[in-house]
């Protein structure tokens, strides 16, 4: 049987699938970041914390609310969470945008980055204080529990992970379609450059910006719900991820929606392969790629030149 550095072809396929799963998370998160950056000119450092928050809200809905209220029937199961949590998070984003971010648009990128960095610390700190560090478990929904044995390649894959790949692709590509293939996209891009002027042309830019931020945060929340059954729901789950996702957005190129999605998936794969063949480097591989890309193609793989 043919083997590559001790990995069977079956093993390789399995590993690629695993990489794709991580890639899906990168894709959803970097998509949200790209939208927010694209429109608000803000590097949403609290994206990771908002992802964490999504997971926590789902967990709270599942296990805590019924206790608070004393109605055991009142739980938000996974399927409801998948819809409700992004909405709740979007609402949260809306509030942040209206009360804080709004004041920063005319300023340098730096301030948005710092504000959201501060928000990230607050959100994480609060969850840390309330629920401790080791985190809580969130069971996968019954329908998706268990694993599918892929006899052909001799491994078993958890059903839930397959679901994650499918649903996140769906969300990513429909988002892409709306933004790039409709007039909305042109507004978004123009609004990024000169919101005041666009407004003077009759576009309700403030609303558009609020909604875009809300949507980005909603996506982070959505990713949080998806992640809850895979990773422990813990206050730091997002901060570990956020720098990598930044790198993904930069590699893909700011301002390109498709770039964010494809790069997310691609880097998930590459990182997965590195874990197999040279795990010691898996934590740097994305940064190395980023440095190379920036030197060769400063605007990123899919970015538009300035």
């Amino acid at each position, binding site marked *: 049987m043919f083997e590559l550095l001790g990995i069977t072809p079956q093993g390789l396929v399995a590993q690629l699938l695993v990489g794709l799963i991580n890639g899906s998370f990168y894709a959803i998160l970097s998509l949200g970041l790209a939208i927010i950056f694209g429109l608000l000119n803000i590097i949403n450092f609290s994206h990771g914390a908002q992802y964490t928050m999504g997971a926590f809200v789902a967990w709270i809905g599942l296990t805590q609310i019924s206790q608070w209220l004393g109605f055991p029937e009142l739980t938000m199961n996974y399927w409801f969470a998948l819809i409700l949590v992004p909405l709740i998070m979007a609402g949260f984003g809306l509030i942040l945008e209206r009360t804080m971010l709004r004041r920063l648009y005319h300023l340098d990128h730096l301030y948005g980055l710092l504000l959201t960095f501060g928000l990230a610390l607050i959100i994480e700190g609060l969850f840390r204080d309330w629920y401790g560090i080791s985190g809580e478990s969130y069971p996968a929904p019954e329908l998706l529990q268990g694993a599918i044995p892929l006899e052909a390649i001799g491994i078993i894959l958890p059903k839930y992970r397959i679901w994650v790949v499918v649903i996140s692709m769906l969300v990513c590509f429909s988002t892409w379609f709306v933004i790039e293939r409709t007039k909305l996209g*042109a*507004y978004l*891009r*123009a609004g*990024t*450059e*000169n919101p*005041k*002027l*666009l*407004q*003077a*042309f*009759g*576009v*309700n*830019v*403030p609303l558009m910006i609020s909604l875009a931020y809300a949507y980005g945060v909603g996506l982070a929340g959505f990713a949080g719900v998806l992640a809850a059954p895979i990773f422990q729901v813990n206050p730091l789950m997002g901060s570990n991820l956020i720098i990598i996702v930044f790198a993904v957005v930069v590699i893909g190129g700011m*301002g390109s929606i498709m770039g964010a999605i494809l790069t997310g998936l691609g880097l998930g794969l590459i990182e997965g392969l590195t874990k197999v063949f040279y795990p010691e480097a898996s934590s740097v591989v994305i940064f190395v790629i980023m440095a190379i890309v920036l030197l060769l193609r400063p605007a990123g793989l899919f970015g*538009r030149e*300035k």
Partner: protein
Amino acid sequence: MSGLALEIQNLESWYGESHILHGVNFAVKEGELVTLLGRNGAGRSTILKTILGLTSKRAGSIKVLGNETIHLPSYQIARLGVGYCPEERGIFASLSTEENLLLLPEIAPGGMGLDDIYAMFPNLYERRHSPGTRLSGGEQQMLAMARILRTGAKLLLLDEITEGLAPVIVQKLGEVVAGLRDRGFTIVLVEQNFRFAAPLADRHYVVEHGRVVEVVNRSELADKATLLNEYLGV
């Protein structure tokens, strides 16, 4: 008898701390073309920006087609039927020329079609897929003008539209503006180029230090030539 398209009373305006307009008054009837003349820094561009709420603070009264707009956000003012061609052109770099053209929402029926526009500015047709800010200075100027013609806005605020254009184009633009006036558009023109403006306008307002200091009707041009010369050095 046409009503007032624009009526401005005691308009004041600020950029941050600096107070630029100190009580501007004038009114434009529907279908009229007026110009704002003045030296550099007199505050003409600021008047247009203030009408659209683009300065940091404003006070007084601005009625657009009879609606008080002083407390409205920019986009609602625009939707009353105001088209604005800014001094710095404001072409969007991340959009292609054609996207720039198509970007502005139609705020009223009766805008020009894309074909008419391309016929008017063939340069734009040729460069339609090029990123907006890669156009030459003059081409950007044409684009900025062209895109508001699509929207159906009836009150046009045009800031130095002949700036940086070749004489042929200036000439053509003169014809375009005259045509627009004849089709019933109301136009406020900020111009440096008095020769361009003089034959077009029904009335000229001279702006100095953030106030309207003189009104010159078309009929009075000859009489007030020395006065104008004093104000503008024409």
